[in-house]
C-alpha cells in the first residue's frame, strides 16, 4: 500500500524525509545555558526507521520535538519537503503536526475523559475531516493497530499495551508520512514493548512511513531500526546502519 499522504516535494526530487542542518536548541536555566541540541546535522530517508539513542539529557527528546515542530530551534534549520520548520508560523507548524506528523509518547497521553474512538477521532477534528468520513477512518486506524473491541471504553480501562495501540492509531488518524515516537516502550513490559515495535515496523513498511524513535534500549533498537543514531550532550556522536 502506498503512503496515503506523502509530503509534497517543492524542490528537486529527493528521497529525504527530513534533514537538519547544524541544528541547535539552547535553554537558559538559572542563568546558565543548557545546550540540549548542539549543532546536529542529520538526514533521514523516506520510509526509514531511525532510532535515536543516548543517555537521558543527551538531547534526543529535544531533537524529536524539533522534528515534530513542537519546539523551535535556537539556530540551524529543519528541512521538510524543502521547507524550513524554523521559519514557519505557529499556525503553519500546527498544520504540519496535524497533517504530516504522528506522535506516540511514553505515557500514551490519551485524553482520559474520551473513549477510545473519540481519542482517535480528535486529530481529525483539528484537521477538519468531514464528519461522515471519520467513523470509517477511525475504524481503519484501529484495525491497523489490531484493536476492534472495547472501542467505547475509556483509556483507563485498557492495559498499557492497548493504550499504546490506541495512541498509535491516533497518530495514524490523519495519515501522516512520518511517525515520531518518544520512548514508546518505556512504560510497557518487554513483551508488550516488542509487540508495539513490531506493529510500528509493520505499519511503517505497509504505509511507507518514516519512523523516528527515541529510546535508550539499544537491544530493542537494534532489532527494529534500520539505523542507530547516538547522541550525547546535544551532539551527534555516531551513526550505525543496520542491515
Amino acid at each position: 500500500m502506498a503512503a496515503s499522504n506523502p509530503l509534497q516535494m517543492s524542490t528537486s526530487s529527493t528521497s529525504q524525509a527530513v534533514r537538519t542542518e547544524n541544528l541547535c536548541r539552547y535553554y537558559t536555566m538559572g542563568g546558565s545555558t543548557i545546550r540540549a541540541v548542539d549543532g546536529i546535522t542529520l538526514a533521514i530517508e523516506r520510509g526509514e526507521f531511525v532510532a535515536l539513542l543516548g543517555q537521558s539529557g543527551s538531547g534526543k527528546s529535544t531533537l524529536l520535538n524539533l522534528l515534530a515542530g513542537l519546539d523551535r530551534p535556537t539556530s540551524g534549520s529543519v528541512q521538510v519537503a524543502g521547507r524550513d520548520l524554523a521559519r514557519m508560523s505557529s499556525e503553519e507548524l500546527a498544520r504540519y503536526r496535524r497533517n504530516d506528523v504522528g506522535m506516540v509518547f511514553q505515557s500514551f497521553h490519551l485524553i482520559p475523559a474520551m473513549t477510545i474512538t473519540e481519542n482517535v477521532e480528535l486529530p481529525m477534528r483539528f484537521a477538519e475531516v468531514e464528519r461522515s468520513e471519520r467513523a470509517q477512518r477511525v475504524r481503519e486506524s484501529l484495525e491497523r493497530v489490531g484493536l476492534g473491541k472495547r472501542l467505547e471504553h475509556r483509556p483507563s480501562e485498557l492495559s498499557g499495551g492497548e493504550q499504546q495501540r490506541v495512541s498509535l492509531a491516533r497518530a495514524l488518524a490523519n495519515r501522516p508520512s512520518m511517525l515520531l515516537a518518544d520512548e514508546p516502550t518505556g512504560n510497557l513490559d518487554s513483551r508488550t514493548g516488542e509487540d508495539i515495535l513490531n506493529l510500528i515496523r509493520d505499519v511503517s513498511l505497509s504505509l511507507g512511513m518514516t519512523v523516528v524513535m527515541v529510546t535508550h534500549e539499544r537491544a530493542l533498537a537494534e532489532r527494529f531500526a534500520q539505523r542507530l543514531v547516538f547522541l550525547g550532550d546535544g551532539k551527534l556522536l555516531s551513526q550505525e546502519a543496520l542491515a
Partner: protein
Amino acid sequence: MKGYDLLDLAVRNLRQSKLRNGLTTVGISVGVASLVAMLSLGVGLQQLATKRLAGSGMFDTVFVTSKQDFRGFDREQDQKDQHPENAPVLDDAARDKMAHLQYVTEVEPEIRVMGEIVYGGQTHYGFVTGLPMSARENEAFDNLQGKFFSRSDADEVILLSDFAKELDPSNPKALIGQQVTLRYGEHQPLAADSDTSGRPQLSGEQSGGSNSNAGDSYGFSVVRKTQQLKVMGIIDEEPYGGMRTVSRGRIFLPVDLTAKLNMAEFSDMRSSLRGHGRTYMTLTVRVKDPAKVAQVQDAIKQMGFRTFSVLDATKSLRRFFTVLDLFLGIFGSLALAVATLAIINTLVMAVLERRREIGVMKAIGASDGDVKRLFFAEAGAMGFLGGVLGIALGFAIGKAINIGTGIYLHNHQLPAEAVWIMPPWLIGAAIAFSIVVSLLAGLYPASRAARLDPVQTLKYE
C-alpha cells in the same frame, strides 16, 4: 477546527467538572437575573407612569388657567407676575379666542361643583363633574361596570365605586339601572342685573367712588334644584388617572348635561366679587395633533394665561427614568461583574488542570487559535446557559415582585398593577450581554491556554 467540533469539545469539557462549571453558570445567571430584574423594574415603572399619563388623554390637551387663580403652583412664574389681579380671566371671550387658534379642535370648561345624591331616603354629598363623550375613547378609565353615557346631554350618571358603596353598602352593583335624584345649586342671573336700584345694600357699600359703572354690580342667585338621573355605570378609579380637575369627583355627568343644568360653580362667586362676567376655573384645549401642543401652548401663554400640558410632565419624567434606569442597570451589573470574576477563576483553574491535555492537543495538531477558541467556546457556552437561566430566574423574581405588589395594593383596596414588565428585547439583549461578558472574561484564560508550551506540558510524566 469546525464550529460543531468546537462546541462539542467545549460542552464535553464543561461537563467534565460539572459542579465547578455549574456553580459558575449559576453565578452568571444570578448576575443576569439581577440585571434583568432591575431593568424590567425600570421599564415597568416607566410604563406604569406613562400609561397613567396616556390614560389621562392629555397628550393632545393643554390646560389653561388664569394667573389670578391657583397661585403658588409655580413659584418661579409667580415671582415674575407681580400683579396677578391684572392678569386676564378665563371668560367666554377668551374661550372663543382660543377656539379660533390654529390646530385647536375644541375648548371645554372643566366643571366641578358640590352636589347631593338622594337615594333610598338618604342624602350623600359629593363633587359632581362633567365628562365629555371622548372620555370613553381616551381610556380615561379602565374598569367601567355597566355602560357609558348614551348621549352627551342624557339624564344619566356614572358613580365612583366608593360613592356607590356609600349609597348601597351591601350591593353597590345593584345601583346600575336605578334612578337617583341629584340636588344641586343652579346659577341664576339676577333678573335686573344691570339695574342697581333694586339692591340698596350694594349701593350702600360704594366707597371707592368708581362704581358708577353698572357692570360692577354683577350678581347671581343660587337656587336649589333637583334632577332625576339614571345610574349607567360604576367605575373603580377616578377617570384620567385622577390627574384632571374633572377626575376629582365622585358623581359624573355627561358634560353637556352639566352645562344645561347651569350649575353654580365656585368660580361664579369670585367672578361676582371681582365684577367680571362668568369665568371658568379651567379650560381644556384639545389640539388636533400632539405634535402641535407646544405651539398652541405658546400661543395661549402669549394671551397671558397659565398653561400646563403633559409635554411638560413627560419631559421631566423621561429624564427621571433615564437616570433611574442607569442606576438600576449599575446595581444589576454589579452581580454580573462578580460573576465575571467567577468565570475567569473557573477558566484559569481549567487551564491549569488541563495543561497536559492542551499540550497533547497541540502535539496532535491543534493550533494556538484552536486552543484559544476552545476556551472561548467554553466561556461563551457558560455565558449562554447563564443568560438563559438568568432570564428564567429574573422572570421568576419579577413575577414574585408583581404578585407581592398585587397583594399589597389589594390590601390597600387598590387594583393590581404590573410594576415589573420584561420587554422581549431585554430577553435577547440580556443573553447577548451575558455571552459577550463571558467571552471578555475568557480572554485572559484563553490566551494563557494558547500560549502554553507543549514541550513543557508534556515533559514531566
